[in-house]
């Protein structure tokens, strides 16, 4: 971890780079122990789910290409038959959950980051000193995202495991 740091003091003092690093920052939502701070968890989940969906999407494009590539449907049917097992269903279930969370939270991020709404209004700091970000409607949206994603996830589980439909 110890590394010379460029800056005004370079070469004079040996410094210690105190960086938690990419993996800890993007995988551990409790890296900074702040109470009542779901946005950090939302950020980590958004990243992780985004990466999982991308991985799935690349596989999905390759698998979908099978009948066109072989110019026949028999390979497709044997492939689909081989996918019909519990391990694969669990994988599908995980990807489904990722899509629901990522999509719903993505709408929240679109509103806040792109359209600049739901982020609260600047105000004069006054007791009990809660930043507008923590009071604004994005917080409520985030709880809604968590709840809706959980509901959709359960429903998708019922469908994937053949309980419903």
């Amino acid at each position: 971890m110890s590394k010379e740091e460029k800056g005004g003091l370079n070469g004079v003092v040996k410094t210690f780079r105190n960086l938690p690093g990419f993996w800890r920052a993007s995988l551990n939502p409790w890296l900074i122990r702040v109470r009542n701070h779901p946005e950090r968890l939302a950020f980590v989940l958004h990243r992780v789910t985004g990466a999982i969906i991308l991985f799935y999407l690349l596989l999905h494009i390759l698998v979908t290409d099978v009948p066109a590539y072989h110019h026949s449907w028999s390979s497709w049917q044997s492939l689909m038959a081989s996918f019909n097992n519990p391990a694969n269903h669990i994988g599908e279930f995980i990807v489904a959950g990722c899509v629901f969370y990522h999509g719903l939270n993505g709408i929240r991020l679109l509103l806040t980051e792109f359209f600049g709404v739901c982020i609260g209004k600047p105000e004069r700091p006054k007791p009990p000193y809660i930043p507008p970000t923590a009071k604004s409607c994005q917080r409520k949206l985030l709880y809604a995202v968590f709840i809706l994603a959980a509901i959709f996830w359960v429903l998708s589980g019922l469908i994937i495991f053949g309980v419903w439909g």
Partner: protein
Amino acid sequence: MALSDLKAATKVPPKEVTIRIRRYSPTTGKTWWQEYKIKPHRGMTVLDALLEIKAKIDHTIVMRYSCRMGVCGSCGMIINGMPRLACQTQIAEVATENNPVITLEPLYNFPVLRDLLTDFTNFFEKHRSVKPYLLRNDEAEREEPYDQYIMSPEEYLDIYEYSLCISCGLCYAACPVAAADPEYLGPQALAYAARYVLDVRDEKPEIRLKIVDTEHGCHRCHYAGSCSMVCPKIVDPAQAIQRLRHILYKWKLGMWRKKTARTASAPKVWKPRKPLPPEVKPVRPDIDYEAIEKEPVTIEVDGIKITLRHLIPTKADKMFGEERKRAEAQSS
């Protein structure tokens, strides 16, 4: 929300607390944990505890502090896993009778020079890089202003929150992006950029928008909001960055034009003052106060005598700009 527990100072801290400090020695390049036990008093802050350790137990621990009242922004450190100002954190807030251990670490995302002392060179370099000052079309006027910029109370409130920043670096230590990317401008610099882009007195927002529109600028922020949650001055950088980003996108799509402040000139001719009500009688009639007022004041500093002109305003003091220069040239 570093100040969330407003009643902390009234609480009784545990009888004895253990302070665990993550230390670093630049000569050996080693880090280690060291523990100190102290008996806190009511109202004691973490900074007080550190100073007590420094005075009575181990004078080799190094930290930075100055104002001891949350104004200078030097004493930021990680207290029990959360970036906080040591001088604004009560012992009673972070230690309980059941768990009387306080862990102190140097701020994350900063190079550590020694013990709790971190190097802010790059941090201030980034702050400087967003041009944190008013940019005006008329630069000569900016340097030597003789007019006033008109700003409504609403426009002032729009940026007031962001202008409270004390550059303590807590937000930078909390940010998950800064934790990975040392080139990321960081919440503090970006909030400052937003503060000037939104300021109606600033006339060149494009310059600053171009500075933040890089791969390591405002696009790296993912609205994790940790910066706002730890900021001791409730600057809310997360909100400022999202507003900045929204403006940047609008500007890029040609849908944003800045509303800038006009200037209001000071009146060229001063009206005669209204006469003041008659003064009350002097307390001691034997002293001529007016004569004293006109007497030059002589101060002795290091053996050198300095004589000050008495402080009754001259005619030139009431003029502005060119007029004043002419008047001063005339009188001298």
